[in-house]
């Protein structure tokens, strides 16, 4: 059995990035993700890489844009307020079809908000990461091990599809320490980058990395083409299901909320309520089909999240509001209690089967 290492979630992401071949990290300190930058500042110089502390989040994401355009695996990480600033760069990355990995260890908002864990950037990550028509691939780990595993996958997906892949965690996952098996990262996939700005070296015609298209017909065509790519990505929407086969009540939760929900489901089952968990691992693409399939047999849904109710809209859309959906939420850095989730499951179970 492989030896496990005790690590913070933030550190596991950094370790995985290094294992995935990332040698260029551009950061800016912000709680509660700073350990990630600190880890990179310690490790990357020893590996011949670059840790650069940028003057702002805006500069950091644009440095990622440059490094990615030059063909290397590049990364930046931040927490909620920092992601607002990175929005510009995320839009340009999408418009230029550049791969990148961006981490958001969410804290409570809006504004400066707080520094306690939150999931209030769900809309930002899946809906409005910046101006224009585009998407990120959004991966939502719920253990430190998964922060490690999904980070490696994020680099692979980003290069494969030439998109930004985001690791959407929260302050609790970033800070918690758990044992991690770091031996899994066998063959990390790499992809040729014939489009990269490495200088022509006299061997090819010039490459241009650009997001400006003044002819509307051309821009529309490019957007349509990009959405064909998103449709392809959409096929790999993924969930981790727990006791869903016979479930009357389906709990939908991601990240740290999924761990609370799992405990609550176990408790509910002891009380004779058939509850099960669907944990979206990909938030974009959202696992619509898995939701639809569950709606065929379940009588009600409970969505647990640390926001005023954001993912709940995706659940309702996916099942076309065909079942009652109860929101069990906290906001501002508060975490839902086991009891609150159990009580929401009980309420859902009292629903008449339609």
């Amino acid at each position, binding site marked *: 059995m492989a030896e496990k290492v005790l690590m913070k979630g933030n550190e596991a992401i950094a370790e995985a990035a290094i294992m995935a071949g990332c040698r260029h990290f551009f950061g800016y300190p912000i709680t509660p993700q700073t350990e990630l930058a600190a880890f990179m500042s310690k490790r990357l110089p020893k590996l011949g890489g670059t840790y650069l502390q940028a003057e702002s989040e805006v500069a950091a994401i*644009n440095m990622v844009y*440059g490094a990615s355009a*030059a063909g290397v695996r590049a990364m930046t990480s931040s927490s909620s307020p920092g992601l607002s600033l990175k929005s510009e760069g995320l839009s340009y990355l999408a418009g230029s079809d550049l791969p990148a990995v961006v981490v958001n260890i969410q804290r409570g908002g809006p504004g400066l908000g707080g520094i306690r864990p939150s999931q209030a950037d769900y809309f930002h990550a899946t809906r409005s990461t910046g101006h224009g028509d585009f998407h990120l691939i959004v991966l939502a780990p719920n253990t430190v091990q998964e922060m490690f595993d999904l980070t490696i996958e994020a680099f692979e997906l980003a290069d494969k599809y030439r998109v930004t892949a985001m690791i959407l965690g929260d302050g609790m996952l970033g800070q918690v320490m758990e044992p991690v098996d770091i031996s899994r990262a066998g063959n990390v996939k790499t992809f040729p980058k014939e489009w990269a700005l*490495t*200088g*022509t070296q006299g061997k090819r015609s*010039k490459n*241009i990395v650009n997001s400006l298209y003044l002819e509307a017909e051309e821009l529309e065509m490019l957007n349509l083409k990009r959405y064909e790519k998103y449709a392809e990505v959409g096929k790999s929407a993924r969930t981790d299901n727990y006791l869903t086969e016979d479930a009357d009540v389906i709990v939908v939760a991601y990240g740290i909320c999924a761990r609370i929900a799992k405990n609550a489901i176990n408790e509910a089952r002891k009380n004779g309520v058939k509850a099960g968990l669907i944990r979206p691992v990909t938030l974009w693409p959202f696992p619509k089909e898995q939701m639809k399939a569950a709606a065929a047999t379940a009588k009600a849904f409970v969505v647990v999240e640390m926001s005023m109710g954001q993912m709940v809209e995706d659940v309702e859309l996916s099942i076309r509001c065909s079942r009652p959906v109860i929101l069990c939420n906290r906001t501002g850095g508060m975490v839902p209690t086991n009891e609150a989730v159990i009580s929401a499951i009980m309420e859902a179970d009292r629903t008449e089967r339609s």
Partner: protein
Amino acid sequence: MTIVYERPKALTDTVTHYCPGCTHGIIHRLVAEVIDELGIEDHCVGVAPVGCAVFAYNYFECDMAQAAHGRAPAVATGIKRANPANIVFTYQGDGDLAAIGTAETVHAAARGENITIVFVNNAIYGMTGGQMAPTTMPGQITQTSPYGRDPKLAGYPIKVCEMLAKVDGTTYAERVSVDSVKSVKNAKRAIKKAFEYQIAGKGFSIVEVLSTCSTNWGLEPVEALEWLRKNMIPYYPLGVYKDKGASE
């Protein structure tokens, strides 16, 4: 028959979108001649700004990126850090560099980032139709300073070379002009020196080029050159503001 004058290899064979009389064309040519003379075309990467020079990526015959408004020095930093053997330059206007991209510019200089910036100062926002720029001079009339820039209301212009000369990380900062044959030749010398410093690994270099905007200044091209000489050069004196590379 001997060819005595032709398009530099580092310029593409493209009709530019610049207005008649605009000095961007001269400055593009100078950069391209320098790239040719230094033989760096095959490992040169340029970064285009947002503004009049946004299409620079179509005009230079080398790998090119187009950056978000003001972010060219950050994008250039990423490119240079990824492949330090590449020669990386940005080509930016005054709105891009001295307003929205001030932080990126100052900090690229502070880090001593081994890149070259060609900074074109024409004291106005050209692409958007002639609004007040961070380099618009007191009293200068623009679309958004219709009564002349009033320092009490709109503050003072930023003198980029003077500012960056105070930054420890800056290796070379010089202000030149392209209003006459003599000044064009001098501008080329400065741009070449900036690239040579980068090749030698000497760090951050910037050449500020005073430029005209006939269209938005509302002047004939020749009048615009005269206006530059009469109004801009006294406010933005030409010369070397810093040259750490010379003593190294």
